[in-house]
């Protein structure tokens, strides 16, 4: 809200500097967004002069050489001027040598293109008066030559643009801010003294022909409605002082009646409305809910369709005001209005807010009603407005005056002790200072008594004024004391730091471990938006599950769905970098993803990474390209961070045309229904191409339910291992190309274990070679395994190992389709 310093001074004798006032407002709890000066700043050596002659500069087409009379300030000066309007006869402001203009622009005697110049004639912007740089400021009227600028121009004002927090609707007014500043600077506060106090003057006419009745049909939405009749007014421009005030805070003066309404609202915070009495059909006012579909054309010229939840002020026929928000186009005051009805009312905050939002219509009035207008001071504002209308538009108050509602008395007292406040603050503020803070803020202490233990200070019963509805508990008074004591005076201290009470959340620990791992393996950590467009997530999730991820009210189409995977965001990152010519191969991210489990969506912690084939990047030394097993290797480590042994997990083929993963080149493991799931492999080539990404992209992702991470991880137990030498045998098997190596390996382990029995142990069976091609039939491949045998207590003999090895080969031949490659 814009607050004028001149205006504030009507109520409180502020003589502090603008900086001090700004600081006071700030530390009272209101952010000063800007401070704006109107009028001329204080300038020395800038005086009124009159241009006597103008001649062309001999050496410059666009410059003139003028003689200017500055009277007693220095007589006639020769000044070079570049303005188009430096014509003889004009009075202008002349900055004399030694003067300093805004921006620390020092005026000196000088030579301009060889022509001496003894000062400068000024444009408005050069004087700090704002506006365009379009010629000299021509002075209206004929102030005496040599008059200093600050005597020739009306004094300026300082306007603070202040953000008022929602708990302080009382400060949406000059009086409210003045009250706060009076408390801060310990200055007296003068409230406006109304002449009209509601009682009709003697001999006032009873004009029921203008306003016959006021009926409030929806008292729950309108706790107070008052209406006053003023007759015989003359609508016209407001007096200069009123116009100045409104202009200073950014309002356009309209006419005396409208301006008074605005003035009083900005003074007291109470919105007002004036009707042309002749335009009220049936000369009655009804405060009621609108009928569904009822229409009104508001002052802004737009037709509004109302609903039965909206409150209106109506006459006998139709709504004339959307209550508390905006008046109708054809019931307001116009140039020929002579009799008016002044409305001063209070409306329920929620009702105004809902209507304002539904209509998409807000005003200074609705803004105040939404935040809360104090019904206990409303009538003061009405009286004030009546006074000012009589003063600026003439006329007289007539009867009848209506006041409906407003009869709930205000009484609120809070008991607070010195001790309570000190305990909350953590430092001592003398009881007298606390008491002084209450007094300064008009929080009247109605009772002060010592608590039972005198050392603990007094207990105060504090009466809360009606405009401070935000104060209703002792803790609220702690803030009031602290505000006035000054938050800058909170003493420094050391942090009391007992030991940790718990461990970091397991999700946090998981994210740290996997990020450390991936960054340690040359990945760049990314952060992508959680909300993704529908088209982007489509390849990664079933259509039904995708629908469940949709927001009800997305803001933009590109951010409409929760992400079911981190991979799509990383692909976008890859694409962005490639398109900018930035070479990138390894990206990773941790964050939440949203997966489908048994028809519901679950929020999971996840990590993902991608490895892109280097493209376009040339290197003096070739490295091997990434492949499926690159990502499998990393996924192993990520799963381990979540306590999952990936090597033991069955892998399921994944991917189908049109989906994110490339069929035959990607797999999945786990199932979110059991707590975690992983996907890894080649990203669908067609998808990558459609995105405009060059080269193949491999990716891996691991997602886990937070609650699964939270489960206690069982501590690993040590397993004894043999100190004896191992016995090694190699075995190559020819199998169908489609047979997974893992299946063959498992079979082999089983047979080997059976063959060894309990004599010693098969320590490991591992693939070490894969071959297909020449020497093997079509559709077959050869897998070579290394078998390691070991005994816990002795060195194995060749004979016993050979015996076992023969048994294994025999059972392979008997029970499997695998051929032993000899």
């Amino acid at each position, binding site marked *: 809200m814009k607050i004028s310093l001149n205006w504030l001074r009507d109520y409180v004798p502020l003589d502090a500097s603008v900086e001090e006032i700004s600081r006071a407002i*700030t530390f*009272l*709890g209101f*952010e000063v967004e800007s401070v704006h000066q109107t009028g001329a700043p204080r300038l020395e050596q800038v005086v009124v002069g009159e241009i006597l002659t103008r001649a062309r500069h001999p050496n410059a087409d666009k410059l003139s050489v003028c003689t200017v009379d500055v009277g007693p300030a220095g007589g006639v000066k020769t000044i070079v001027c570049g303005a188009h309007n430096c014509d003889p006869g004009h009075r202008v402001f002349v900055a004399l040598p030694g003067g300093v203009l805004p921006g620390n622009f020092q005026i000196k005697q000088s030579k301009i293109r060889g022509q001496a110049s003894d000062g400068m004639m000024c444009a408005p912007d050069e004087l700090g008066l704002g506006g365009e740089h379009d010629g000299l400021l021509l002075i209206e009227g004929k102030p005496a030559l040599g008059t200093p600028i600050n005597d020739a121009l009306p004094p300026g004002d300082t306007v603070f643009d202040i953000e008022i927090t*929602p708990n*302080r609707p009382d400060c949406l007014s000059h009086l409210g801010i003045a009250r706060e500043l009076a408390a801060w600077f310990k200055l007296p506060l003068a409230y406006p003294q109304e002449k009209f106090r509601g009682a009709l003057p003697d001999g006032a006419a009873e004009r029921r022909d203008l306003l016959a009745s006021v009926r409030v049909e929806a008292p729950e939405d309108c706790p107070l409605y008052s209406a006053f009749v003023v007759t015989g007014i003359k609508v016209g421009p407001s007096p200069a002082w009123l116009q100045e005030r409104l202009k200073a805070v950014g309002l356009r003066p309209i006419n005396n009646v409208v301006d008074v309404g605005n003035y009083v609202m900005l003074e007291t915070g109470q919105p007002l409305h004036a009707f042309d009495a002749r335009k009220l059909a049936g000369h009655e006012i009804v405060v009621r809910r609108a009928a569904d579909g009822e229409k009104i054309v508001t002052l802004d010229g737009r037709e509004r369709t109302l609903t039965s939840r909206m409150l209106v002020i109506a006459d006998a026929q139709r709504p004339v005001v959307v209550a508390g928000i905006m008046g109708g186009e054809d019931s307001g005051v116009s140039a020929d209005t002579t009799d008016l009805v002044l409305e001063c009312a209070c409306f329920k*905050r929620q009702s105004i*807010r809902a209507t304002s939002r539904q209509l998409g219509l807000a005003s200074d009035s609705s803004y105040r009603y939404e935040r809360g207008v104090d019904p206990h001071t409303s009538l003061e504002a009405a009286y004030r407005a009546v006074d000012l209308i009589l003063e600026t538009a003439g006329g007289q108050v007539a009867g009848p005056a209506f006041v409906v509602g407003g009869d709930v008395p205000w009484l609120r007292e809070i008991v607070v002790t010195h001790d309570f406040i000190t305990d909350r603050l953590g*430092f001592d503020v003398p009881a007298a200072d606390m008491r002084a803070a209450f007094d300064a803020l008009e929080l009247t202490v109605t009772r002060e008594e010592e608590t039972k233990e005198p050392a603990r200070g007094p207990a105060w019963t504090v009466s809360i004024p009606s405009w401070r509805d935000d104060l209703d*508990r002792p*803790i609220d008074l*702690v803030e009031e004391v602290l505000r006035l004591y000054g*938050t*800058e005076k*909170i*003493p*420094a*201290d*050391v*942090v*009391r*730091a007992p030991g940790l*009470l718990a461990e*970091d*959340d397991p*999700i946090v620990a998981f994210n740290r471990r996997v990020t450390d791992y991936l*960054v*340690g*393996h*040359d990945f*760049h*950590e*990314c*952060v*992508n*938006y*959680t*909300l993704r467009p529908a088209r982007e997530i489509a390849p990664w999730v079933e259509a039904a599950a995708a629908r*469940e991820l949709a*927001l*009800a*009210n997305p*803001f*933009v189409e590109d*951010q409409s769905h929760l992400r079911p995977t981190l991979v799509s965001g990383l692909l976008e*990152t890859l694409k*962005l*970098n490639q398109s900018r010519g*930035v070479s990138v191969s*390894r990206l990773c991210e941790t964050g*939440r993803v*949203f997966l489908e489990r048994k028809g*519901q*969506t679950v*929020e999971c912690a996840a990590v993902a990474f991608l490895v892109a084939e280097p493209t376009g990047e040339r*290197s*003096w*030394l*070739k490295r091997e390209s990434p492949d499926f097993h690159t990502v499998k290797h990393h996924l192993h480590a990520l799963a381990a961070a979540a306590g999952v042994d990936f090597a033991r997990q069955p892998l399921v083929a994944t991917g189908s045309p049109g989906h994110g993963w490339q069929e035959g080149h990607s797999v999945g493991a786990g199932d979110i229904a059991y707590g975690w799931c992983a996907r890894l492999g080649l990203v669908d080539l067609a998808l990558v191409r459609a995105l405009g990404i060059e080269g193949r992209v491999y990716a891996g992702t691991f997602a886990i339910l*937070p609650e699964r991470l939270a489960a206690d991880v069982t501590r690993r137990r040590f397993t004894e291992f043999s100190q004896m030498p191992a016995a090694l045998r190699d075995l190559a098997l020819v199998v169908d190309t489609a047979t997974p190596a893992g299946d063959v390996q498992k079979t082999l382990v089983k047979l080997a274990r059976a063959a060894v029995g309990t004599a010693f142990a098969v320590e490991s069976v591992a693939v070490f070679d894969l071959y297909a091609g020449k020497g093997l039939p079509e559709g077959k491949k050869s897998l070579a395994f290394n078998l390691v045998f070991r005994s816990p207590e002795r060195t194995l003999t060749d004979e016993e190992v050979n015996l076992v090895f023969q048994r294994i080969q025999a059972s392979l031949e008997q029970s499997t389709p695998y051929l032993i490659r000899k």
Partner: protein
Amino acid sequence: MQDQLSALLAKAAAELPAIASRPEFEAAKARYVGPHGELTGLMKQMGAVPKEQRPAVGKLINEAKTQLTAQLDATLARIAHAELAAQLGPPVDATLPSPDPGPGTCHPLTLVREEMCRILRKVGFVVADGPEVETEYYCFDALNTPSDHPARDEKDTFYFPASARFGNVSRKVPDEKYLLRTHTSSVQIRTMLKGPPPIRIVSPGRVYRRDTTDATHSANFHQLECLYVDRNVTVRDLKALLDYIFASLLGKDTKTRFRPHYFGYTEPSFEVDLSATHLPKVKKPWIEIGGCGMVDPTVFEAVGYDPAVWSGYAFGMGLERLAMLLYGIDDIRYFYQNDLRFLKQFA
């Protein structure tokens, strides 16, 4: 004999330097000192030497053997050295760039978050986490935000359709709406509902506002909040924490100041300013960094803590904003574009 020995040594001296490999060497060694070697043969002739000459001849043979062994050892050392040299190839050009990618980098938001968490851990805060999809209760009701508060408006907060079901996000009130949390304060509520005080947590995380994306706004961004609940927690303690945090982060000359403000879930409430003279690209003496206050008794009542016994403070700030201040970044969108030229600057 002496002549024979001299001839043998001379032959070895001529032949051994030409030997370049281990097999050749082994063959040569056998020729001289093997069971059928020439030196061995000469030694076998000792029996035929007259008894009185034996000491002299023996001495000669021993001398020759010593010499020959030394020659053979030198040859072997030369071959071994040559073998290692052969593994080396030419010397490296250390100025060539590594063809491998990397090193990897942490995102600047991670760096700032982890730094804050480290600072806070030192004074007893542990890191808490909670769901990003929240319910109206945890995000608003429990935080003293009335049902018609503008922050709850569909204009400002992302909601999910009434049909949406989030299996692992618990609802407090049946059928309350799911939404994307607008602040991490919901983690405070969940933590307090989980158990009794004392509580000392820091909750960094993603939050969502229905807002136009521009240089300073983003549909999702990150917050970091601290909550401390114990007996006798005071405004002074809160100020001490903030002084400590920013002195740790930015140097001990850094000052903070409180400006009274309003938040529904704290009373009194403050905005926190930071002395900013030493921050890059900041031309003001003070810059706003976050909000804080003493936990409002209403919030304690909502989670079943007795406000007469427990008191506490809360502090919250935007991580992007902090990172922007620390690093002198002037557009929030850089954090979400992940241009490698950006990411590589901070690790």
